[in-house]
């Protein structure tokens, strides 16, 4: 039986993990590759690396990171952060990335997703959707969730599936950073109205939140950052707990 997935997300800037990571057993707590390897040993099912470095040579920065991760880590990983063209995706996949995550570029040019899935297959194209509730409507936001668009989140999810996304990474900006649980209703609605795997993100605070997002939220995977980085919840404990709760986990 296919398991639900637990995915730590690492934000990387100038080659270092951002957010206060404090792992005593790492030589360099800020090294994304070392931190990723530790998560992998602890049983993470996948990793997401989001490169938020703003440089003119963005592609070069991404490729360097991908190469180091791929050389050292033996579980799948997704790379995201400013990926906007076939050339960017090609460079990341050739360097050893398993999947790429596309966000703002898909909003600017939705046909990019058609091109990418034709060129590389839909299995490696993750579309990241940042959503926020604005006056009762779930609207897609671009540029790291800061700029509202007029796109309805559910319609956008369906369009991305039709255009060739292989997976959706749904981040609730309403929930992100609140530690009050995932956006379960919206996640469940999208999960039942598109046929792609859904990675839920934003709001993880307790182990129960993960149970909820896999049961009520019908998510296929759950992504979190700070609770893992600050060691509030350990991945082995979380997976043991979820397994006891009847959620299928790789232990």
């Amino acid at each position: 039986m296919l398991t639900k997935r637990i995915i730590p997300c690492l934000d990387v800037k100038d080659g270092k993990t951002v957010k206060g990571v404090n792992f005593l057993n790492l030589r360099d707590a800020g090294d994304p590759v070392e931190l990723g390897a530790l998560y992998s040993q602890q049983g993470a099912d996948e990793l997401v690396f989001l490169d938020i470095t703003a440089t003119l040579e963005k592609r070069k920065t991404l490729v360097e990171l991908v190469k180091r991760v791929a050389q050292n880590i033996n579980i799948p990983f997704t790379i995201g952060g400013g990926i906007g063209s076939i050339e960017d995706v090609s460079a990341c996949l050739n360097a050893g990335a398993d999947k790429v995550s596309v966000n703002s570029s898909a909003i600017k040019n939705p046909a990019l997703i058609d091109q990418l899935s034709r060129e590389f297959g839909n299995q490696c194209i993750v579309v990241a959707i940042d959503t926020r509730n604005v006056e009762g409507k779930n609207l897609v936001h671009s540029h790291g969730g800061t700029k509202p668009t007029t796109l309805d989140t559910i319609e956008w999810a369906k369009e991305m599936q039709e255009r060739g996304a292989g997976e959706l990474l749904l981040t609730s900006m309403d929930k992100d950073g609140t530690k009050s649980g995932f956006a379960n209703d919206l996640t469940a609605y999208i999960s039942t109205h598109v046929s792609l795997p859904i990675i839920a993100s934003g709001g993880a605070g307790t182990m129960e939140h993960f149970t909820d997002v896999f049961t009520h939220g019908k998510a296929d995977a759950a992504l979190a950052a700070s609770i893992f980085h600050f060691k509030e919840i350990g991945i082995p404990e979380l997976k043991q707990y979820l397994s006891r709760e009847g959620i299928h986990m790789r232990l």
Partner: protein
Amino acid sequence: MKLAIVKYNAGNIQSVIYALNRLGIEPILTDDVDELRSADKVLFPGQGEASNAMNYLRNKGLDKVIKDLKQPVFGICIGQQLLCEHSEENNTDCLGIIPAKVKKFPPLDKVPQIGWNTITDLKSPLFKGIDEGSYVYFVHSYYVEANPFQIGTTNYILPYACALQKDNFYAVQFHPEKSSEVGEQILRNFIEL
């Protein structure tokens, strides 16, 4: 040991190369007939679309070369599917080395299958030291139907052949290069065949 990886137009080869590097192997990536024939082991990995891959292999004459290989050959993911007779993906005639058919998952659950699933009914030296029910990583929309050359079973929507062996040809649907220690052991087993 000389390990050759078949160079063709299916992607995601780099992570296989890195996985082999971690096991101390420096593979060569080649579409040269002599290099492939003279290798001790041949790896046939890749992700991509079946008809494009087959067209490329035929144009380069690699279809015949692969069929005639006598050393252990290991197909991974699309590599497994291409070793079969026929794929529903764009109605493609494949290499026909293993008499099995590749079908699209019926839309009774999410497609592609992405994530970790179990492998059972393991019967091959490829799985030496691997426990029944071990987890490995899958990403695919097409699967190989149950058949007499099946050496492993996975269940997603239906039970299917996640691994095949016929003579010197071995193949798996999952990605050993991305399947943590279990995957490493399977790659090591292939190297040591």
